[in-house]
């Protein structure tokens, strides 16, 4: 069993490449950044759905001047003991832009460049003035500044640990320099993250003196560790394992809907997949219920629009269900000769291979025969990026919690040419989005009235749902198994919203 003031978590963390907030771009590193850093504004525990003050206590937005002025919280100290200053904020943002690592685009979309960043972000005593440039509202900008790369770091400490002009990048891969509720004690890749509490945290000291995240790749091993009480939380159990935990009184299971949506898409660079009848038929060939009732149970729910349910602007209708007869009819009406052979690329781990096999069986009913090509994550993405796949089974999570993040991915593609590489689902599937849909996406982004904006997104989702080579099928949920005495664990819709600071043990 684990001590009363320590929390041990079993989790697969081998995805972590970097824990520098300017570079951290994986699920597990997102969780880490949340524990150790704060942003000016943030979605915070316990209410992860509302944007709340972080290191800034208040802010004034001037949409006309495209400026937001943040007032910093008083008396906040970094875990190094240095006080928080406006200069730290400026340095943090500048650093992200200058390093230009993977997540930098989240900030640079505000029109920031290494050249103009000194103009765009300025100090004003205890205040920080942030400018932006582009057709979007301040609501969008606040969401961007609540995202991971906008975390505020301790400029003094980081600069002291700079080597070869890396702005402390190497040092931050082994240390934390934030204001967050925890401080990094040890990080060994694919082995352990050891965090200790920050007693001076402005939101109150965490009850747990230590939080240890152990890398445990094997689900069965996680289950054994939880059974024996050597860990308090197991994060990667399968639905079937979760089911077997049902009767136990030492363990409880909690389910948290996630922002990621799972979809099946057809590459439009392949002529055979261009007929709309194939897109239409596909929507009737997914055994939504069969899968969510069995091997996806609890970890995915049927969801057929690109913005996840539970967030403003979502479209929760699920008009399609498994109906092979109808699909056959659609194909026949369009004069499409079956059977047709299509390759289906899929990541070779559960539950993706199971989903692929289920799709293979159900699509075969209408004469669409999938040949499954399993591959590692990077292999699949490499192929996807090169647009050489035929059908693809994959998922998409928003980069930050704004519907535009997904709208851009699913309903926007102005230039489908091969050399205009975009990471969007539309471009990668070679789908030249109709002009009016592109326009609608842009308009929604620029809309300042939240209610109207949400409506515009619902509308956009309906269109994509009806006619697109992308079949959104499920929205993910994460199921976490906890020892019954663990309380106060908060898990929001993305890994950025996992909080250990309120955890207590009875």
């Amino acid at each position, binding site marked *: 069993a684990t001590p009363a003031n320590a929390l041990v978590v079993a989790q697969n963390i081998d995805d972590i490449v970097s824990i520098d907030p300017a570079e951290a771009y994986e699920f597990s590193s997102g969780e880490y950044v949340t524990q150790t850093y704060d942003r000016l504004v943030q979605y915070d525990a316990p209410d992860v759905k509302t944007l709340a003050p972080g290191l800034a206590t208040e802010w004034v937005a001037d949409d006309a001047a495209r400026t937001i002025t943040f007032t910093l919280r008083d008396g906040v100290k970094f875990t190094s003991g240095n006080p928080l200053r406006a200069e730290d904020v400026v340095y943090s943002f500048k650093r992200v832009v200058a390093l230009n690592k993977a997540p930098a685009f989240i900030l640079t979309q505000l029109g920031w460049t290494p050249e103009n960043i000194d103009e765009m972000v300025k100090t004003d005593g205890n205040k920080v003035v942030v400018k932006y440039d582009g057709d979007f509202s301040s609501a969008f900008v606040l969401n961007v500044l609540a995202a991971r790369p906008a975390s505020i770091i301790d400029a003094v400490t980081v600069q002291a640990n700079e080597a070869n002009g890396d702005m402390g990048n190497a040092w931050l891969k082994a240390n934390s320099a934030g204001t967050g509720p925890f401080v990094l004690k040890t990080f060994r890749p694919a082995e352990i993250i050891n965090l200790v509490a920050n007693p001076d945290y402005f939101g109150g000291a965490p009850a747990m003196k230590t939080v240890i995240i152990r890398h445990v790749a*094997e*689900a*069965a091993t996680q*289950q*054994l560790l939880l059974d024996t009480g050597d860990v308090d939380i197991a994060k990667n159990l*399968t639905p*079937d*394992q979760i089911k*077997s935990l049902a009767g136990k009184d030492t363990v409880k299971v909690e389910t948290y809907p996630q922002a990621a949506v799972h979809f099946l898409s057809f590459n439009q660079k392949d002529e055979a997949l261009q007929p709309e009848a194939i897109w239409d038929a596909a929507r009737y060939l997914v*055994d939504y219920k*069969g*899968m969510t*009732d*069995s*091997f996806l149970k609890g970890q995915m729910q049927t969801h057929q629009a690109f913005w996840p349910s539970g967030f403003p602007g979502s479209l929760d209708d699920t008009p399609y269900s498994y109906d092979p007869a109808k699909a056959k009819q659609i194909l026949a009406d369009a004069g499409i000769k079956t059977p047709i052979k299509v390759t289906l690329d899929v990541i*070779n*781990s*559960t539950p993706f*291979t*199971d989903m*692929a*096999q*289920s799709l*293979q*069986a159900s699509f075969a009913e209408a004469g669409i025969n999938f*040949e*499954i*090509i*399993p*591959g*590692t994550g990077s*292999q699949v993405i490499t192929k996807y990026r090169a647009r050489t796949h035929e059908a693809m089974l994959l998922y998409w999570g928003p980069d930050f919690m704004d519907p535009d993040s997904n709208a851009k991915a699913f309903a926007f593609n102005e230039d489908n040419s091969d050399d205009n590489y975009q990471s969007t689902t539309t471009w990668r599937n070679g789908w030249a989005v109709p002009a009016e849909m592109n326009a609608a996406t842009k308009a929604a982004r620029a809309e300042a009235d939240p209610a109207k904006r949400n409506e515009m997104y619902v509308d956009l989702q309906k269109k994509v749902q009806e006619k697109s080579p992308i079949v959104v099928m499920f929205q993910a949920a994460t199921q976490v198994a906890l020892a019954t005495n663990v309380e106060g664990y908060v898990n929001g819709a993305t890994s950025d919203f996992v909080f250990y600071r309120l955890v207590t043990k009875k």
Partner: protein
Amino acid sequence: MSMTVRAWLIDDSPSSRLQARLGRAWRICAALMRNPLAVAGAVIILTLVLTAIFAPLIATHDPLKQDLAQRLLPPGAMNWMGTDELGRDIWSRVVHGARITLVIVVMVAVLAAPAGLVLGAVAGYFGGWTDRIIMGVTDIFLSLPKLILALALVAALGPGIENAVIAIAITTWPAYARIARAETLTFKNSEFIAAIRLQGASAARVILGHVLPLCTSSMIIRVTLDMAGIILTAAGLGFLGLGAQPPLPEWGAMIARGRTFILDQWWVATMPGFAIVIVSLGFCFLGDGLRDVLDPKSGGQQ
């Protein structure tokens, strides 16, 4: 009748090549039959072959037929080995999987063993630089992490059993080359090889016609013993999702998929596991038996 056939077979003075060959084969079989483990091994392999041939007749279900309502059922009257995560009948999948296993095993044996045999014999026979170069390459392949090599190849060629087979073959040939070389070195200077060289035989003729036949028995022994390893390597590739493509009922992939169920639905991983264990044991027993019978050190004299 049977007595006379037997007498014909074990005749000390066969009157034709055919009789001599059959006689030799018969002697080996007879010696094998006296070895209980070898008999057990042979029976298992025979069962595997028959199962592979008659799979559709033996299977009770369609191995690919999913039924999500019937998933993860324990072994019972309907599903002898239970059902898997997609509600497929495990017994039928194991039965059909015999075909894949057999293909893998045979293909590797056909690709890797002869390649290793010839390279090793050539290296050993010529010695000098030929030997140094061939064995250098062999050493390189031997010291490459095996699974990495296989993974890289599968990753490069794409998944699927054919490529898994090629990958496994490429990782196994160096071991055979080493054995063949060692054997060749022991024969190379023997007088019967000198005698055939004196007759003006070309190097190719000496190697193919005279050196290789002597290495084959140890090679056969080694290959049968390695079969278990080959099946397990294929399973290892399956474990990492790089073996046979789903939904093919490859045993290794089945175990790999079933391992998350091992604590609660033990049969999903264990049933194909049993199949692997039994077949591997079969090959091992046979190999062990062959060792006793074919080993040139003991067999030649009797």
